[in-house]
C-alpha cells in the first residue's frame, strides 16, 4: 500500500447523464478492487450523488469508516464542488480533502463509445485518488469588505446601481468620462414602448445621483489603474481638467453664451449639432459645470480671447487647472461602461456620409429631441424641408458576418419608435425594411400593432443599397432604397426623401483595454464576459468586479436598469457580509528558487503578481490570485507552487490517469518502485 490514507470513491449516475454512457457500476467496482492498494477502502455508485441521500452516504462513511480522503466522480467542480466539500465538512473532514473528477463534461457528454467512456472514467478516478492522497487540509482565507463601491459609467445602468447602493446607506464613487452623467439615454427624445419622454424619467435620477450624500460624482474623469483585490481595491482616477473651478462656478452659463467658438459636437449631438468651446452637453447636465474644450478653445490654441474669463461673474474660469489623480478605496466595483454605435460609413452601399439625407439612428434621436439641433423638427439636412417619405432601415451592421453577426436587440423597437415619430411629426409615408421583427418583451408587440395601425409600410427584406442614381422617372432627386420584398419575391426600388439607419450596438472601442485595467475578460466581439450567462449575469470571473448594462451585450433601457439594480444587490450582499471567504487555492513563490526573471509577471490574468524591485523577486497577492496555475506552469525555475496544484499533486494525478489506455487495459504499473522484483 502506497498511502496511509483511507479513501472513499463515489460515482454519480447523474440520472442517465453519466450512466447512459459510462458503466458506473463497473467504475465503482473497479475502483474498490483495483485501487485498494492506493488507499481506497470504499467505492460506491449512486443515482444522484448531489441529493441529500447521496451526500449522507459520504457523511456516514466518513464517520463510520474513518475516511480521510474523498473522491467524487460526477459533474464538474464548477457546479457541485461546494456541495461535496460541505458534506465532508459536516462529517468533520476538512473540505479541501475532497477531490472531484468530471465524468460528465469530460466523459459522458463528449464521448460516444461506452467502452472508451468507462475506461476514461476509471483513469480519471485513479488520477483523483492518487492526487487526493497528497492533499493537505486548508483553511479558507477571509478578507474584509470595504463598504464603499466604485461605479464606472454614468449611463442609466450605472446611475441605477449607484442609487441602489447609496440609498442603502453605503458610499459610492460614480465615475463618468463625459462632462455629464446620463449616457445615451440623455440623447433620446422618447423611449419605447411607452413613449415616455426620456429626459422626464431620466433627469430625476440624474439629479438624485448628483445630490446624493452617499455619492461622490466624478464626471469628466477616467479610471486609470486598479490595484488590490476583492474587498480592498485602490482605484486611481484621472480627474481631467475642466478649466472651471467647481467651487466657484454657479452654472449660470454666461461663459457659454459669450464664447465665440462653435464646433461640431460629435459626442452628445452625434455630429448633427454644435457646441461652444466652453459648454455643457445639454441643459439638464449633472453636474452643471461646463468644460472648456481645449482643442477648440481660441485661447488655448492662439493665446488670445479669454472671453469666458472676462464675463464669468464668479471668477470660476481657471486656464491653469491641471488634471488631477485621485485614489479611492473600495470593496467592490461595478462596470457600466455602455456601448458605441456601429459606424454606418463601414457599409458604403448605404451612402452614409456621402448622401446628405441618410441619417444614423443617433442623429435621428437628436433631431427628434426638443432640445436638439432642430428643436424636435424632423427635417432634411438642409435644416428646413420636411420629408414626405422616409425609409427606416433595420439591422445596419447587425446580423451580418461582414460586420457584427449578433442581433443588436434594440433596433427593431427603436425603428418602430422612429416610424411613429416620423408619422406624428410629419405625416410622411414611412417604409420600415426589416429581416425579422423582434418585439419580444412586455408590451413590445402591442407597440408594433400600434405602429401598424398608423399606416407605416413594412417591407420584409434587408436593404441591398441606397443610391441617388435615378433609373426611372420619379426617382430624380430622391434617395432610392433598393431591396427584395421577400413576401412577393420581387425587387423594389422605393424613392424617399430621407433614410434613417438603425445602426447596431458595438462594444466600446476601448473595451479590451478597460477589461484589462479591471482584470476581466471580453468575448471575441469585445463585450465583457459574465460569470455565467444564465445564472450569474452581472458577476465576472474576477471576485469583486461586477458588470451591468450594455457593456455586457446589447440591451435596452429596462434591461440595463434591471442589471444595474442586480449588480447593486450583489454588491450590497457582499458589503453586508462584512468579510468574504476566499478559496485557499493559491499560488505562492518559493523565494529561494525565484531568479527574478519576471516571466510570470505579465501572464497573470488577475494582476495578482508584482515584482519586489529591492529584493528582485516576484510576489503573489494571495487575495488576488484565483489559483488558475498559469504562473506555476510558466516558471522556468519551478519556483512557484500552489496549494491544490503542487507539482507532486499534479504528477501523482498524471500517474493515475496513465494507468489505463482507452480500451481499459492497464498500461502502466503504479509506483513501480513498490512492486517486488
Amino acid at each position, binding site marked *: 500500500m502506497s498511502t496511509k490514507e483511507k479513501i472513499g470513491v463515489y460515482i454519480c449516475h447523474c440520472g442517465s447523464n453519466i450512466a447512459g454512457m459510462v458503466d458506473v457500476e463497473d467504475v465503482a467496482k473497479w475502483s474498490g478492487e483495483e485501487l485498494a492498494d492506493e488507499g481506497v477502502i470504499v467505492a460506491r455508485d449512486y443515482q444522484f450523488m448531489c441529493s441529500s441521500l447521496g451526500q449522507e452516504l459520504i457523511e456516514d462513511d466518513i464517520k463510520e469508516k474513518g475516511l480521510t480522503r474523498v473522491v467524487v466522480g460526477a459533474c464538474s467542480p464548477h457546479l457541485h464542488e461546494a456541495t461535496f466539500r460541505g458534506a465532508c465538512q459536516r462529517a468533520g473532514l476538512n473540505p479541501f480533502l475532497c477531490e472531484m473528477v468530471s465524468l460528465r463534461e469530460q466523459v459522458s457528454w463528449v464521448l460516444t463509445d461506452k467502452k472508451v467512456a468507462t475506461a476514461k472514467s476509471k483513469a480519471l478516478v485513479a488520477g483523483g485518488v492518487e492526487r487526493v492522497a497528497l492533499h493537505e487540509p486548508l483553511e479558507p482565507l477571509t478578507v474584509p469588505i470595504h463598504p464603499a463601491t466604485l461605479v464606472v459609467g454614468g449611463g442609466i445602468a450605472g446611475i441605477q446601481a449607484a442609487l441602489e447602493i447609496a440609498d442603502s446607506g453605503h458610499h459610492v464613487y460614480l465615475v463618468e468620462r463625459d462632462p455629464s452623467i446620463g449616457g445615451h439615454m440623455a440623447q433620446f427624445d422618447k423611449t419605447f414602448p411607452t413613449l415616455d419622454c426620456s429626459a422626464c424619467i431620466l433627469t430625476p435620477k440624474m439629479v438624485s445621483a448628483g445630490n446624493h450624500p452617499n455619492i461622490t460624482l466624478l464626471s469628466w474623469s477616467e479610471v486609470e489603474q486598479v490595484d488590490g483585490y476583492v474587498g480592498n481595491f485602490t482605484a486611481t482616477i484621472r480627474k481631467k481638467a475642466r478649466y472651471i473651478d467647481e467651487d466657484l462656478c454657479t452654472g449660470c452659463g454666461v461663459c457659454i453664451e459669450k464664447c465665440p467658438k462653435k464646433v461640431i459636437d460629435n459626442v452628445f449631438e452625434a455630429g448633427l449639432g454644435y457646441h461652444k468651446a466652453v459648454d455643457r452637453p445639454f441643459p439638464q447636465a449633472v453636474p452643471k459645470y461646463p468644460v472648456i474644450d481645449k482643442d477648440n478653445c481660441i485661447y488655448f490654441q492662439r493665446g488670445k480671447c479669454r472671453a469666458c474669463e472676462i464675463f464669468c461673474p464668479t471668477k470660476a474660469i481657471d486656464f491653469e487647472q491641471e488634471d488631477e489623480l485621485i485614489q479611492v478605496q473600495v470593496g467592490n466595483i461595478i462596470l457600466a461602461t455602455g456601448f458605441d454605435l456601429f459606424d454606418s460609413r463601414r457599409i458604403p452601399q448605404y451612402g452614409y456620409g456621402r448622401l446628405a439625407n441618410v441619417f444614423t439612428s443617433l442623429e435621428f434621436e437628436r433631431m427628434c429631441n426638443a432640445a436638439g439641433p432642430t428643436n424636435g423638427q424632423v427635417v432634411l439636412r438642409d435644416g428646413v424641408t420636411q420629408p414626405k417619405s422616409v425609409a427606416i432601415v433595420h439591422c445596419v451592421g447587425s446580423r451580418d458576418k461582414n460586420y457584427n453577426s449578433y442581433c443588436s436587440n434594440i433596433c427593431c423597437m427603436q425603428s418602430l419608435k422612429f416610424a411613429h415619430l416620423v408619422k406624428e411629426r410629419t405625416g410622411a409615408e414611412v417604409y420600415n425594411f426589416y429581416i425579422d421583427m423582434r418585439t419580444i418583451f412586455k408590451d413590445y408587440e402591442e407597440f408594433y400593432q400600434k405602429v401598424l395601425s398608423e399606416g407605416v409600410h413594412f417591407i420584409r427584406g*434587408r436593404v441591398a443599397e441606397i443610391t441617388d442614381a435615378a433609373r426611372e422617372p420619379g426617382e430624380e432627386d430622391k434617395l432610392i432604397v433598393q431591396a427584395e420584398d421577400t413576401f412577393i419575391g420581387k*425587387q423594389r426600388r422605393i424613392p424617399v426623401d430621407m433614410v434613417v439607419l438603425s445602426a447596431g450596438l458595438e462594444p466600446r472601442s476601448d473595451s479590451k483595454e478597460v477589461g484589462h485595467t479591471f482584470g476581466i475578460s471580453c468575448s471575441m466581439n469585445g463585450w465583457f464576459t459574465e460569470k455565467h450567462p444564465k445564472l450569474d449575469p452581472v458577476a465576472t470571473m474576477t471576485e469583486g468586479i461586477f458588470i451591468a448594462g450594455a457593456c455586457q451585450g446589447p440591451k435596452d433601457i429596462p434591461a440595463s436598469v434591471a442589471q444595474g439594480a442586480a449588480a447593486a444587490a450583489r454588491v450590497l450582499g457582499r458589503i453586508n457580509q462584512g468579510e468574504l471567504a476566499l478559496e485557499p487555492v493559491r499560488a505562492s513563490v518559493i523565494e529561494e528558487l525565484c531568479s527574478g526573471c519576471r516571466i510570470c509577471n505579465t501572464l497573470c490574468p488577475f494582476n495578482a503578481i508584482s515584482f519586489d524591485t529591492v529584493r528582485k523577486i516576484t510576489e503573489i497577492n494571495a487575495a488576488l490570485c484565483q489559483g488558475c496555475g498559469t504562473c506555476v506552469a510558466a516558471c522556468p525555475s519551478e519556483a512557484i507552487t500552489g496549494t491544490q496544484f503542487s507539482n507532486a499533486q499534479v504528477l501523482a494525478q498524471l500517474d493515475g490517469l496513465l494507468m489505463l489506455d482507452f480500451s481499459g487495459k492497464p498500461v502502466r504499473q503504479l509506483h513501480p518502485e513498490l512492486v517486488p522484483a
Partner: protein
Amino acid sequence: MSAQSSASRASPSSFIDEVIAATPGSDPHLDLCVQCGTCGGSCPSGPDMEHTPRQLFAMINAGMKEDVLRSNTPWYCVSCYYCMVRCPQDVHITDIMYSLKRMAIKEGMFQESTAADAPDFSETFIDFVEQYGRSFELGLATRYHLKHHPLGAVKMAGFGLGMLLRGRMDLTPTKIEGIAQLKTILARAKELGADSSKNGGGQ
C-alpha cells in the same frame, strides 16, 4: 408540375446536399441562408428572373429540384458578385448559380427554362476554346445567332460589321501552339470530373 408535388417527392436534405457538393472551393454556406433577401435586392438582373436567388434557396431547401433546375434564374446571373459580397451569411451565391447551371445541363432541364438558349451560348463559346485555345468572337456570334436568333442575327450583322471595320474582330480564329497539350489536359479533366461529385455533373 406544381411546386407542391415536386416538394413532396424529392427528399429535401438530399438536394441541398447535392448542390453543396457540386460547388467547388470552401463551404458555400448554403444551409445558412436566413432568407433576408439581400441577394434578390442586389441583383442587377433580379427583376427579370423567375425566382430571386433567395427564393431559389428556399426551393432548394424544400427539395424542389425540378422547379429549381428549370428556373431561368441561374442563367440570368451576370456574375457581378454583388450578392456574394453583401450576403450577411457568407453564402457563396454566385458559385452556387454556376453549380445550378451545370446541374441543369446534366439533368437536361434547362431546355424547359425561358433561358433555354443560354447553355448553347456557353457551349458554342467553349467549342471554339477547345478547338483553338482562344475564343473566336465572329464564329461565336454567327453560329450562335444564326441558330437561335436568325432575325436578331441580321441586327447583329451591323454590330459585327462595325467591329470588323474598326479592326476589333478577327475573320479567322487564332490557334495556340500547344493545342494538343490543352486538349489532353481538358480531356483528362473531363474524365476526372465525371467521377467527382464536386464537379456538379460535367458532360
